[in-house]
């Protein structure tokens, strides 16, 4: 190639390379990548897990997006480029398996959680059973049962207590469990139903009651690798199931699988 042609090509090449870089956002790093879609309830523990994973797999770089499990499921159905899902319930994962989006063989339950009723510190006592006795105008925040597993658990539990329908006028739904927690912290609602793990590091709220009894839900954290994603996805699931991953999850308040 003539030197003139080269001179013209270099700046063009640079521009094209930069554009390619910008669009993939993967230019800095040359090692294996893991892209994770995680339930909002994992937003505190996931950075720790990712850090530990990257240390154990030198050269690796993991990243996560958070949202309500139902919302994330929708995005993956639409083809979002994700390698592994870590959801707060079994249903969204199983639905993705049914649609052939997620690899059934890689599916693991990696942790468990508890459903709790929280309210402001110093506020009046209230339990799951006494929700209907709250003063008029006092509201209860719950995840949207259609898209948030915590909300689905709450609905099912309150239904077995025979309270769900009567509670409807007071119920305020949040788009994810983080939003539900925020409503409680802002004082917009008198009580909120979230996971026990949500209270870690939160000082202005206290647990008023824990779901118990035969019909208490058993929230599970379920991970699986996405079909067509990188093989590192399955590796990440294995890491979550390992004792190292389990230790980190336990330190954040999650129960053993």
């Amino acid at each position: 190639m003539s030197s003139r042609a080269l001179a013209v090509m270099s700046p063009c090449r640079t521009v094209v390379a930069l554009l390619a870089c910008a669009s993939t956002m993967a230019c800095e790093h040359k090692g294996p990548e893991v892209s994770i879609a995680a339930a909002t309830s994992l937003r505190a523990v996931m950075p720790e897990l990712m850090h530990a994973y990257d240390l154990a797999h030198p050269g690796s770089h993991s990243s996560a997006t958070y949202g309500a499990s139902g919302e994330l499921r929708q995005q993956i159905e639409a083809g979002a480029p994700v390698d592994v899902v870590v959801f707060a319930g079994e249903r969204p994962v199983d639905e993705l398996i049914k649609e052939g989006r997620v690899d059934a063989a890689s599916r693991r339950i990696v942790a468990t959680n508890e459903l709790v009723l929280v309210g402001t510190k110093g506020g009046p006592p209230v339990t799951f059973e006494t929700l209907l006795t709250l003063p008029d105008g006092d509201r209860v925040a719950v995840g949207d049962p259609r898209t948030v597993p915590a909300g689905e658990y709450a609905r099912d539990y309150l239904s077995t207590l025979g309270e769900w329908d009567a509670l409807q006028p007071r119920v305020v739904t949040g788009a994810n469990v983080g939003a539900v927690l925020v409503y409680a912290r802002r004082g917009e609602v008198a009580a909120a139903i979230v996971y026990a793990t949500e209270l870690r590091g939160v000082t202005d709220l206290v647990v008023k009651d824990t779901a118990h009894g035969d019909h208490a839900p058993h929230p599970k954290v379920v991970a699986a690798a996405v079909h067509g994603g990188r093989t590192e996805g399955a590796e990440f699931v294995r890491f979550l199931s390992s004792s190292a991953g389990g230790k980190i999850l336990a330190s954040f308040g999650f129960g053993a699988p």
Partner: protein
Amino acid sequence: MMGDAVFPVLLSLRVAVLALAIVAPAGVALALTQARARYRLRRLVDVLILLPLVLPPSVIGFFLILVFGRRGAIGGLLDSVLGVRLVFTPAAAVIASAVVAFPILVKTVQPAIEAVPVELELVARTLGLSSIAVLLRVTLPAAWRGVLAGLVLGFARAIGEFGATLMFAGNIPGRTNTMPLEIFTAYQTGDDSRAALYVAILTGLSVGVVLVANSSGPRAMSR
């Protein structure tokens, strides 16, 4: 379930009509003021009117919660004095829709009024009308096309509100789930046929709005 499929339609219509009922008189009055009066803070008021048009809806939602939330300046007052809580109510949806519809209405009506020749108003005064009567019986009728366009565009914006409504009124089934919010939920839960229903309704409404607004653009009055 027919009942709860119809609810978002009725809710959206109610919210938009109420929002317009609030916004129309205030907006038209403000458009008249900005078009005809010259006062010192006029530029500042112009900017304030335009603000909700330019602010991202999530920012508007945030400000609404800041002001009207339980711990907000106005919300706290409403709660302690009247026991009224606005967040997560249909009233909140009305407020959010009113806030975003307001600048569109004012900015559509104002040029129409400015295009009304002042002489029409001067003559009407000599014929015995008071200043208010002139505004109501001459200025506004002369600008009717622009007023109609403003109302219709304001209605469209009100019924299409999403971001601020989601934050301030929430997306609570059976209470504050307007059509735009329902489309989002239906999409997220994979209920495409339900989403399609509301998409069709809102698209039809929007087409109607555009047709009306386009045929009644603020035209300069001919001699």
